[in-house]
């Protein structure tokens, strides 16, 4: 892959690149931050990054939202609705995981008095 081609690809798939960068930022937070709440923010960033990736993959240049209403002709271009349907589910799942994690953190704090992963390791 030549340099110009690389830049071309990076440019056209910029959304994907951003999504993967966000994924790595989230993973970094998850791994390196000792605070559990912060870890979970990182996890949320990771999740949204994948959502961004999936939704971007369904986009079509100049496409409209897939709603058949007024002003829709036979030549109207629609974006791909499947990724949207999937991500709707994905968002809910992300929220559910977060809710459970946060309530676990509340319980953990009641039991151990800290939310610092390093200190928790020592407690054990």
């Amino acid at each position: 892959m030549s340099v110009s081609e690389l830049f071309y690809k990076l440019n056209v798939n910029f959304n994907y690149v951003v999504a993967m960068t966000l994924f790595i930022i989230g993973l970094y937070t998850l791994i390196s931050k000792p605070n559990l709440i912060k870890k979970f923010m990182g996890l949320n960033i990771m999740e949204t990054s994948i959502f961004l990736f999936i939704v971007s993959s369904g986009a079509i240049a100049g496409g409209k939202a897939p709603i058949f209403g007024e002003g829709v002709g036979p030549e109207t271009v629609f974006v791909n609705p499947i990724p949207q349907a999937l991500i709707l589910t994905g968002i809910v799942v992300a929220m559910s995981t977060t809710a459970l994690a946060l309530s676990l953190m509340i319980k953990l704090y009641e039991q151990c008095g800290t939310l610092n992963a390093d200190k928790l390791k020592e407690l054990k």
Partner: protein
Amino acid sequence: MKKGLVVFALFLLWILLVYTVIVLPPMGSPENPTNTHIIPRYLEKGVEEGGAHNLVTGIILNYRGFDTMGEVTVIFVALTCVLAVLGRENILRHTSKAEVSSVEKSVIVKCVVRFLAPFIILFAFYIILHGAESPGGGFQGGAILGASVIIITLTFGFALVAKKLSLKYRVLFESAGPLSFFIAGMVAIFCGQNFLTYLLPCVAHTYQDFVRHLLLIMVEIGIGVGGGAAISSIFLAMEKVEKE
């Protein structure tokens, strides 16, 4: 040292991931595999088959209805999990963290919320019911419904909400989502169709479309109410503190 190693490893992973995504066909092109394989049929027949002008709603209720059933189950699971970890709130024993804290609630907030809350709830129901025609749908509305409960709790206190949304009904509301799918699906099975079929041949032809709309609306309301109730209950369970 360890941190440097982590950063380095993540950097390598980043390069790897970026490489794997940029070799994909250019984003936004109509020739992508994602845009050529299944979509044409959805765009062509989706509205007619799904019974909704909003294709996304049509897909999540029809073609991918089982996913959506899973989705509402996930909310229900989340709620049950939170209850398993923290326990259900009890008006007699608990109050909200916000009330315990000494911050005085401003009158402006109270007034605005008092004024806006009914509209928010109305809007939520609009979104739920109008999801077939415009952006929105069961879950979006449910989230807004839940959010409205949250702001009301935060402004007017825990006791009011816990009493108004008493457990007697809330338990039913929480399970509305999965249950509505269950009912719709079982109706189909008893009519000899596959699970989650809305267009039932056992119904007289003229009423088929009507029955389908009825079922769809039931499911939408179920998702909305269920989601809203679950979010409210999660919130209440997390917000509760023991009274002194």
